């Protein structure tokens, strides 16, 4: 909300920007996401639970909101429902994951405790933990990771996570603030 106000406040300083009241008005009209009531359009209930779980593992809720709060599973379901080209790889990928979970732990992926879910996914998501014979799973994991990244960082919550500058307007061309260190050799990281 701060960014929205910031946008309006900066816009108001521009002469001849009467249209901006309108422009800024609709920035805040994000859809209200209510995951509890969502009816999947493509995935079965069990598949959808797995997609929710996977997206929340890829971008978890920690000190800041994650894929859950951003409604990423809904977005993925909507995009897969809209794009026949994605349906086969998602469905077969989820099937592979369940078969893999059954083989290793005797249960479907979503029925496993969190530690076992993570231990199955680590070889798929971390290059240095990759296991031979799991190529299909790695391919599926990068697919769902890609769509989780798209869903999260195109959401309002994702913009806030990065303090995305795209929400703001500027009265003049923004300039590098490090006048005494143009080569940027001596900056202190603020995000560790």
């Amino acid at each position, binding site marked *: 909300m701060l960014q929205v106000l910031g946008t309006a406040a900066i816009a108001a300083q521009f002469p*001849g920007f009467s249209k901006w009241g309108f422009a800024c008005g609709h920035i805040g009209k994000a859809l209200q996401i209510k995951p509890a009531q969502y009816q999947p359009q493509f995935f079965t209930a069990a598949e959808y639970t797995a997609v929710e779980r996977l997206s929340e593992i890829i971008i978890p809720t920690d000190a800041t909101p994650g894929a859950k709060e951003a409604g990423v599973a809904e977005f993925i379901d909507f995009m897969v429902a809209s794009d026949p080209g994605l349906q086969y790889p998602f469905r077969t990928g989820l099937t592979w994951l369940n078969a893999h979970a059954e083989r290793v732990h005797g249960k479907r992926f979503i029925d496993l405790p969190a530690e076992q879910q993570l231990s199955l996914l680590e070889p798929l998501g971390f290059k240095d933990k990759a296991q031979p014979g799991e190529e299909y799973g790695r391919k599926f994991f990068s697919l769902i990771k890609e769509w989780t990244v798209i869903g999260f960082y195109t959401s309002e919550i994702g913009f806030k996570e990065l303090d995305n500058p795209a929400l703001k307007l500027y009265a003049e061309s923004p300039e590098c603030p490090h006048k005494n260190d143009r080569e940027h050799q001596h900056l202190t990281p603020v995000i560790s």
Partner: protein
Amino acid sequence: MAKQTYDVIVIGTGAGGGMAIKTLCEAGLKVCALNAGQRLNPEKDFRYHRMPWEMKFRGLDDPKYRDESFGYMDNEYTKEAWDHEIPFTVAPGTKWMWPRCKAVGGKTNFWGRSSARFSDIDFRAASLDGYDVDWPVTYAEIDPFYTRVEKMIGVASTVQNRPSNPDGTYLPPFKFRCLDFILESGCNKLGIPYLPDRCAQLTQPHEGHPACHFCGECTTGCDVGAFFSTPYFLLPKAEATKNLELRTNALAKDILVDENGQATGVAYIDRNTRQEFEVYGRAVVVAASCIESSRIMLNSKSRHWPDGIANSSGQLGRNLCDHLYGESAHGYLPQLIGQPSFPDHVGDSTIAWMPRWQNLKDPHEEDFIRGYAIYPDGGCEEFPGFATDLDGFGSSFKREVKRRYPAPVSFGIQAPTLRSDKNYMDLDPKVKDPFGIPVARMHFEWDENTLKMWEHSKKVCAEVLRAAGGELEGSGDAPEIPGWSLHETGTCRMGNDPKKFVTNRFGQTHDVANLYVCDASVFLNCTDKTTTISILAFSLRTSEHLIENFRRGNHKTA
């Protein structure tokens, strides 16, 4: 109803057509302009500061339309502006992308805004390196037109004294971002220029247009007109004269001729009703963009012009040139990892450039002739595209995306092709568009010289990144496919010899004295610079030549 005759019919309202329309109307000539699509309403048809989560498909567009799209510029924000109805074909072995903005103003609604002047090193390139032929103009002749165009549109840059890039009159430049200072230090170590680009984006109010508000959404259309586009900058001036009639959704089919083979008007099809109309004028200006203009002219067959109007040279559609685009290198600047986000994307890719530095002292310094330019970019983009390439998942992944958000950089090449007999467009003998008009068929391949530039750029950009203390991640596997740059030129080249060139040095066709061409098709090649400001300058010159021909009585006013 009495047959109405205008002074001039102008086909197209982009940079070339828009400049012709304004110049002709202000000179008191009655103009009828035809445009293939509708007029846009910025509030409704541009992005207008809508955020991705306000869009049904987050700005990515409905996947079911993906196959119908002819280019990467189509997206959910500006979909209505692009042509999805008129197909084209490619010869075996050719890949081609041809996005066409059908809306009034054409691609000026969404263009990249880089605005460097051509120079004598371009116009006299053949004399310098022996390839092809010189342009029939000198820089001294075109210089005043560039100056007038820069005053009209406003270009932000600095005086740079570069041998290949003549300086003009500029608004204050975009200020350098952190990444620019770091990359500049790398370039300095290697003796490569790193300078503010020539960007037609208003860093201060200019000629009644408001200054930029640096939102970075330029290529989805500016909602206040803070960069040049014909609907904001030229058409209102033409409309104020009351000499303009603009017909929208009017698809030019062919140019009509009289018993002497001279142009008498244009036949067009209404896109909505599919009815055919004719509109008459004492002169015709074709400015439909390079390939489309040639397509219209090739389709204008008559007893006089069996191979297309003004095509006695057989050169219409030939000599197609394009810019090779591609990512020469990408990586990270570790200096910026962990820094707070910064508005890096406010200029939407045209803040800095590495203007041509090759083959300047000697045209044969390198193993290729001529030269290319590099557009560096990076930092905090609206979408963190690098994130899917980062390893892992979970909180460590999420934190790494945030840490690296300000740090990615990339280098984009803009390299010209050389004129070649292999690169041209013609009409597909079998395929017609839904309106019954034969479609363009593309024949194109990258030439060896251009591919050498691509290889050269990959080496140099990797060196620049390393010299700047950056981490090189890689480069594009291959250049983008031809047509990607939207800088096609040369299908209707200008020259003094009517046997070898379609138009004379003023863009007036040799064969048909009252037919003029006002777009990049008259250029002999695409040079290492972008096309729009030169289209504007040449169109202004051609339009004034046309006006002079009316004054002298060579064309009679209607």
